[in-house]
């Protein structure tokens, strides 16, 4: 393998891995904030117990998300230095903003939340977890603005002298229609992930408690958690579907080759069908694709809201891109960046299947939400049906898988480009870059191989530890009681709030 392949594997592995933890952090921090708010508002101890229980799971997860996130920011320069030179003027800005506006808030207020239970007034302490929740979501916005720019470069012009993309409109970068669709898609997916996580664990516990005769705990503690998770799932699920449809329409316009490949659509067609099942031969090119099950006209409808609209297939798009880029390079005296073998559409099988697996796993949570809606439809009911608990646990993994395949789809689908050229009306001539031209030129394959092996081994070990910790804390269940640790409660109990000899309510 050459440096390019190794650098791509490394980026793929470290990024998909990082994004196992990120959606749970983004979605769970507001849910924990809501639980703590309910405790603050109602004074009902169940919400404190739930806050502490899901708060511990959040923190276990937060740590590994933060740790693996550092790699992401360094990796652009380390393995993709030529990409960084080409885009730095525009791509660096949202990254720096993310650190200044979001990471500082997130890290500082998380520290205050973890250690501040007995030092901060209740209201301030509650504000800390909300600050964390908002900052994680804000961070998602900035990094998605950066990624969306790679999918749909806006607010830039090409500098012929330096051969670089240069920003001329930060407003356009931050209101890129692509990020305005990708951001809601990602945070609602995160909400779906966290909702399924909360509802799944609480459903399993509810069934277990009812079956062991502790119906009171099942009803008073776990049922409300299932309901909260369920609401998050319904809001998240609806948001994912609507924003996903929006994204698909944009993508047909901005990256037609990605969407054509996602449908295995080789020849341009009026009223293109949506493929449910297709198989290809091992050559993985157009001649080998056979569509077995299709819904007529649906692809055209998804792209344009018109069942009969024409959709361009990859064969036509191949010629279109080759000609467009070559004409532009010749007209402007720019050195040729590709040869006749260059394919201007992504790997068909990966794009086709990752798109379907994203959608398929995405509706995995629906089974749990429908079951929960039915079984818990009457106020205050709990259930002892074992299958419901099992379904809860089984459903937890599905949104994680959907997110992973979603990223594999959108990043692999952008190939062979790292910065995708967009056809009219919104494309910017010259602002595109083949992935092969973005990789670092001074890092040897051996060097990247060392880090690829190092990261993969370390990540493998950490994944096992993370899973065992999450599992262990989930099966421990909600504590039977939690003492109010706030300074107010201690003052009410007649002890001085600034008592120097008291032990800390929390310590590492």
């Amino acid at each position: 393998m050459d440096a390019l392949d190794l650098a791509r594997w490394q980026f793929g592995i470290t990024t998909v891995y990082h994004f196992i933890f990120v959606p749970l952090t983004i979605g769970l921090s507001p849910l924990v904030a809501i639980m703590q708010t309910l405790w603050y508002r109602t004074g009902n101890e169940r919400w404190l117990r739930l806050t502490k229980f899901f708060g511990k799971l959040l923190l276990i997860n937060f740590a590994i998300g933060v740790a693996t996130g550092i790699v992401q920011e360094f990796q652009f320069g380390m393995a993709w230095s030529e990409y960084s030179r080409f885009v730095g003027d525009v791509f660096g800005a949202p990254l720096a903003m993310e650190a200044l506006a979001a990471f500082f808030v997130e890290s500082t207020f998380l520290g205050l939340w973890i250690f501040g239970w007995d030092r901060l007034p209740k209201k301030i302490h509650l504000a800390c977890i909300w600050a964390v929740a908002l900052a994680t979501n804000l961070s998602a916005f900035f990094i998605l603005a950066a990624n969306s720019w790679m999918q749909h470069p806006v607010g830039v012009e090409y500098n012929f002298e330096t051969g670089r993309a240069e920003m001329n409109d930060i407003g356009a970068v931050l209101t890129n229609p692509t990020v305005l669709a990708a951001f809601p898609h990602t945070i609602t997916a995160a909400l779906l992930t966290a909702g399924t996580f909360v509802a799944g664990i609480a459903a399993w516990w509810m069934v277990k408690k009812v079956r062991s005769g502790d119906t009171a705990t099942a009803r008073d503690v776990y049922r409300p958690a299932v309901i909260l998770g369920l609401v998050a799932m319904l809001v998240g699920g609806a948001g994912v579907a609507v924003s996903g449809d929006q994204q698909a329409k944009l993508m047909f316009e901005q990256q037609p080759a990605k969407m054509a490949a996602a449908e295995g659509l080789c020849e341009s067609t009026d009223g293109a069908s949506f493929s449910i099942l297709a198989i290809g031969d091992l050559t993985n090119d157009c001649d080998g694709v056979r569509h077995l099950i299709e819904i007529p006209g649906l692809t055209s409808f998804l792209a344009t809201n018109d069942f009969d609209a024409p959709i361009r297939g990859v064969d036509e798009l191949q010629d279109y891109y080759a000609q467009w880029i070559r004409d532009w390079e010749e007209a402007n005296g720019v050195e040729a960046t590709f040869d006749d073998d260059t394919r201007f559409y992504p790997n068909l099988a990966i794009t086709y299947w990752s798109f379907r697996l994203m959608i398929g796993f995405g509706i995995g949570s629906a089974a749990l939400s429908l079951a929960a809606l039915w079984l818990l439809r009457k106020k205050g009911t709990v259930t002892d049906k074992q299958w419901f608990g099992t379904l809860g646990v089984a459903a937890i993994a599905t949104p994680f898988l959907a997110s992973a395949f979603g990223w594999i789809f959108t990043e692999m689908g952008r190939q062979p480009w790292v910065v995708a050229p967009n056809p009219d009306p919104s494309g910017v001539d010259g602002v595109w870059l083949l992935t092969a031209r973005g990789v670092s030129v001074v890092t040897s394959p051996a060097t990247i191989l060392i880090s690829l092996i190092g990261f993969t081994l370390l990540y493998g070990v950490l994944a096992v530890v993370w899973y065992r910790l999450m599992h262990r804390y989930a099966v421990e269940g909600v504590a039977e009681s939690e003492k109010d640790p706030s300074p107010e409660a201690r003052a009410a109990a007649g002890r001085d709030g600034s008592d120097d000899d008291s032990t800390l309510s929390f310590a590492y």
Partner: protein
Amino acid sequence: MELTTVWFVLIAVLWTGYLVLEGFDFGVGMLLGILPKKGDKERERRVMINTIGPVWDGNEVWLLTAGGATFAAFPEWYATLFSGFYLPLFLILLALIVRVCAFEWRGKINDARWRAWADRALIFGSWLPSVLWGVAFANIVRGVELDADHQYVGGFFALLNPFALLGGVVTTLIFLTHGAIFLALKSDGDIRRRAGDFAARSSVATLVAAGAWAIWLQLAYADAAWTWAAVAVAAVALVLVVLAARARREGQAFVASAVAIVAAVVLIFGSLFPDVMPAFDAANSLTVDNAASTDYTLTVMTWVAVILTPIVLLYQGWTYWVFRKRLTTEHIPAHTGLTFRRDEPAAVAGASSGEGSGTIKE
């Protein structure tokens, strides 16, 4: 002032924030393997970890911000530096990853072997970056082999030259002393006394090594005479660290060691300017002009930085105020972590390991 100069200064400020703040939490992390005494090792370690517990994560973000700001303001510098220093940065990343996880996960499982692994991660994860940041900065200021395309072509082993290795020793000693002083400032009882003793001794070694390195830098690699002022400030500050540490004036010692770090950053960046990465062949050097983003991007980022940085300083400062109390072993609660074996009561495991704490909670 030119915008490129503004950003050169801002990036120096971000690195100052990182080295002053994470410097002491690296120091405390390294001292985990040195200071705690047999008999009360576990509780002393926990005192140490908890003095930095609420703040280490916020300290580390200064690094991410410095990295992101370099990317945004000087993309060529970011690209050359990060691809050229690939292996040292990879090692730093490994260290930071295990360190972050160890902080958060250490207390989650109540088992002596589990904690031993977390401590190894914290100690390794603090030593390695302390050494490597010094090596990296020394190489930047010394100059590296860049070709006409501004690519670093010197290879990994060229980074391990005497000046750079001494730089690694200097940052490690500074962080050890800075961390010991911070610990003495934030703890009480026996651990405070031993941290103070350590700082009193290590500050002398720091003064010698850092002083020698600074003079070497100034004589060999600095073009301007004014950076002698930074050498002088650093030297005076380090002498004050020695005096204050010996007199156990912890607050003064901490301010002095922070000033020494600031002076070191001023010396490094001051002797770089107007280069950001000098090359052996001066024609190939990366400078604030040829490495910079466009004026438009720098203007946008200036607004963002000017508005947000003071706010960050305010709430981070507030955090230090909230957690201003000195910690002792008496403050450390019993282990609340679970055990992987569910039938094993947590408290028993803590007691049987012989290093559980005084108060046993459920």
